[in-house]
């Protein structure tokens, strides 16, 4: 484990002013037999939008829960989750008492879950959820509701109508936006969203993404957007992290992950995505299956699906390599991957080179 920790620290160097740092976070079930998050280290920069991408069962929801120390029992979270309210203060949220943790959740870091329908209490009006949240955190209700109305109208909702409705009286897209408003009620520093748009149609997904961008600017909030939908989050994120089989395998600025990705899995994922401009013949599914949380292979966990895998890959887990500046990848053969696995969509590689590394 120690060797892993040392090498993974390198993937940290990219961020100058982190608001959250996750160090060697692992989540285990069954007394350490089953890993659903395996030694993940990364940081989130203040005021960025970080997109975390992974297939179902890659551990991405566990990562989200880890940021709030909210792993469901009997799961066990180890490692460190450091929160920096400002540049000079550091607290480890895994050391928090229950009271501190309650204060931290929602007021410092809040979360939007997948499926708004199951997040609201169906027997309570939407407005009552806002009031309850304010009361639970000892905030002034009238002031808080005033703020709630402002956020709701920023999300193109009619505040009076929404607050006075039961959840089932709103459409899925309106519920999801109301939930985002609720998560912003206590002006958190960080908003963690786990598949916030998954149950919605594409048009509403894109509209919500646009609104999130405005919200981020207006309320100065750092966002972590977790999804399986790579092209969706690509339109929003500043930086992206790719997960595979409970590990982080690649991280870097958005344009580099899309245009010049270095991990064979990321490149295969990009090529497997139905894309409106890509030539149809070149969309390829990824052969094979991702490994189960038990019996994770010893070497690189992608080795048995990877076209470039060699003996080294099945023997040694790859360390994080710096591709360029802030772009890191855990692969033995990333140079070869970029040469041999072509990206099929318009603007892969070449276009990436010209705009790569630029930040918005």
């Amino acid at each position: 484990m120690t060797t892993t920790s040392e090498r993974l620290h390198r993937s940290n160097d990219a961020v100058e002013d982190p608001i959250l740092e996750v160090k060697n976070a692992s989540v285990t079930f069954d007394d350490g037999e089953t890993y659903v998050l395996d030694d993940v280290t990364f940081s989130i920069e203040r005021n960025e939008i970080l997109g975390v991408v992974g297939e179902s069962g890659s551990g991405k929801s566990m990562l989200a829960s880890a940021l709030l120390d909210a792993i469901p029992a009997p799961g066990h979270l180890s490692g460190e989750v450091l929160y920096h309210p400002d540049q000079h203060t550091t607290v480890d949220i895994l050391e928090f008492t229950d009271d501190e943790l309650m204060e931290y959740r929602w007021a410092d870091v809040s979360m939007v879950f997948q499926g708004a329908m199951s997040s609201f209490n169906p027997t309570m009006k939407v407005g009552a959820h806002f009031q309850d949240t304010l009361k639970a955190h000892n905030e002034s209700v009238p002031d808080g509701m005033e703020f709630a109305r402002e956020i709701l109208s920023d999300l193109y909702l009619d505040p009076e109508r929404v607050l006075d409705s039961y959840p089932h009286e709103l459409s899925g897209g309106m519920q999801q936006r109301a939930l985002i408003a609720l998560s912003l009620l206590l002006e958190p520093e960080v908003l963690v969203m786990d598949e916030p748009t998954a149950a919605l149609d594409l048009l509403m997904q894109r509209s919500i993404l646009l609104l999130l961008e405005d919200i981020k600017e207006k309320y100065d909030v750092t966002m972590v957007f977790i999804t399986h939908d790579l092209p969706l989050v690509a339109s929003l994120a500043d930086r992206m992290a790719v997960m595979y089989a409970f590990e982080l395998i690649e991280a870097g600025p958005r344009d580099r992950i899309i245009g010049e990705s270095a991990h064979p899995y990321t490149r295969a994922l990009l090529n497997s995505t139905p894309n409106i401009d890509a030539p149809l013949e070149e969309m390829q599914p990824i052969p094979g299956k991702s490994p189960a949380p038990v019996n994770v292979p010893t070497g690189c966990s992608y080795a048995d699906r990877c076209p470039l895998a060699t003996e080294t890959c099945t023997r040694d887990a790859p360390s994080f390599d710096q591709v360029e500046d802030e772009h890191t990848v855990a692969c033995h053969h990333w140079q070869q991957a970029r040469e041999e696995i072509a990206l099929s969509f318009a603007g892969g590689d070449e276009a990436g080179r010209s705009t790569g590394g630029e930040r918005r």
Partner: protein
Amino acid sequence: MSRARDTADAETDAEPLIAAEDVEVHFEKEQGILELFDDPDVVKAVDGISVAIEENDVLALVGESGCGKTTLGKTIIGLQQPTGGAIKYRGRDIWETKAGNTDLSFKDVRSSLQIIHQDPGSSLNPNRRIVETLAEPIRLTHPDITAGERRERIHSLLERVGMTPAHDFASRYPHQLSGGEKQRVALARALLMNPDVILADEAISALDVSLRVEMMDLMLDLQSEFNTSFVFVSHDLSNARYFAEHGDGRVGVMYLGNLVEVGPPERLIADPQHPYTEVLRWATPNLSLDATEASDPPMRKIDIPDPVNPPSGCRFHTRCPEARETCTRLQPELEEFSDLEASSDRADSSRSHRVACFRSEPDHQYWESSAIED
């Protein structure tokens, strides 16, 4: 454009496999006792749509939630009775057949029109092994087949949809399968009946992005192998494009119960004629870097209007960036959109490009009317 169509071309006079003729599906909202004497609220889920499906055809229906695409799909395969118009299978009205008024047996119609649901988790009985789920339809339709033959058919079909070893998968329960595997079982179940048409109702939406292409490829393989037509319902234009283009079919764009544009996928996407198609195109994520940057949507409002009280005239006028005063009064018809390139194969109806927008008519009064102020 290689696959299919040759049979359809040969018998252009023949009846299409399925013909929807001016189909309407209107739902009445349930009423409380106090509203007993008021007129009921009516949702026009499908409002006057005509569409035909040939053998070995693909029709991909796209649109946002609540536009009626699933209702239209279910009407096409005879699961939803239309409140107006007619739905015909090989020239005979399906609902008349059910009433026993035609020479077809409804049992045959029913088994030749199949469905794959959106959520594979809830469309399989959790208390039954896969083999039991798949044996049921055979037992019902072919009571004289022996258990051994049944098992053989099930195993060969499971192998065909890529679930090997078949005997292992056949003895599992649904919770022991992944989402993609469950959806394969649902596909196998639909195929057991050798259907003419399968409605794939958001059949790949619940799957991971990386598995969608694989599942679509499997359905397309089976389309050419078993000569099955697909009605593919999706909210994702890029999936609809992939499926319809490979299956040599059409994409139909729906908005609030109306079909607003129908055409071959590449033309519809490269050169969308309806402003709403443009909106869907905007909403479709794109990986090329210059296009990833989210631009403002080409529409004026985010939320779809209340279907109980849809806008007058063209239903899209409340959100349409191009709407003018005419659009609030008149409803455009779905008409052949003519441009020079397309004229060559005009005769083939499946290649036609139709659109319901005044903007496709250069001399319509739309162009004279004034813009709408919000």
